[in-house]
């Protein structure tokens, strides 16, 4: 359960990006979370909602874009998406795979409106 710690980091990043000159309310937080991270989106959403109370991000909609686990086969050169974490090329069954995407954990953007 490290989602809470991660939610705290997200809230910090959000507050650092708010306009300084006017009071705003955060309406939406967009995140990218890769399939190959140890973050459970629902747990994470819950944590973020809880700690956002009494901050400008209270009530903000949390939108998570899950990034697929994409690999490049170093033997046959095929790019594939893995739907389960078995690291075998779906084309040629080689185990020599390079992870192209899936480890992302990003705050992509926030949407704010005047308070």
């Amino acid at each position, binding site marked *: *359960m*490290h989602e*809470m*710690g*991660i939610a705290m*980091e*997200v809230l910090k*990043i*959000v507050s650092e*990006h*708010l*306009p300084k000159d006017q009071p*705003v309310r955060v309406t939406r937080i967009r*995140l990218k979370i890769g399939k*190959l*991270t*140890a*973050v459970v989106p629902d747990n994470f959403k819950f944590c973020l909602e809880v700690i956002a109370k009494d901050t400008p991000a209270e009530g903000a909609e949390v939108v998570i874009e899950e990034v697929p686990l994409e690999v490049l086969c170093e033997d046959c050169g095929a790019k594939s998406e893995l739907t389960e*974490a*078995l*690291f*075998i090329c779906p084309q040629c069954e080689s*185990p*020599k795979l390079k*992870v192209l995407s899936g480890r992302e*954990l*990003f*705050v*992509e*953007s*926030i*949407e*704010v*409106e005047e308070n």
Partner: protein
Amino acid sequence: MEIKVVKKVLGVNDAIAEDIRKLLKQKNIFMFNMMSSPGAGKTLILQKSVAALKKDLRIGIIVGDICTTRDSERLAETGVPVVQINTEPFGGDCHLGANLISSALAELDLDKLDMVIVENVGNLVCPAEFEIGEDRKVVVLSLPEGEDKPLKYPLMFRVAHAAIVNKLDLEPHLDLDRKTFADNIRKIHPAITLFEMSAKTGQGFEPWIKWLKKEAKAKSGAGKN
């Protein structure tokens, strides 16, 4: 109004980990991070590893646990400096973040060390996500946990450089095939360095010690004497 952010959530942790990496490079210290679920045998492996290595290498240990100092007391018996981190005052965190490692390193005399061992909090999920500036990540899996664990916790086995299958002495009592453990680990990470051992009986322990010596030597050169 939309504000573009595009910022890594663990950016702060990663930056501290990078600082640790630089510090250890400057001090010629090899650091490895041992992770497993609770009860896989990390502490006994480390007690025996330190006993086998301490003639040749100067070792310091950082131990993470949510509560208690039991593991650090066991490890302190080996006679090397041990720093205990209890994550409970920080909310019972399930892993060691780079910030905690950074403060623990400050308590060790790094000019007098060749190797730092981090025994992470017992957990196969969260520690996999946090870089701590280590040279090598080692995951321990014990036979009674079941051969499906690598498939259930793929990130941990994917990020680990080496894996230890421990408690081989229990094989006769368990209804499982030890080869499946190795096969499942390699399904997640084909190039991983694999050790099979019983820390209790000493079976299979020697290759692990040899590997540690080799890795430490590669980092610190001929030593500091």
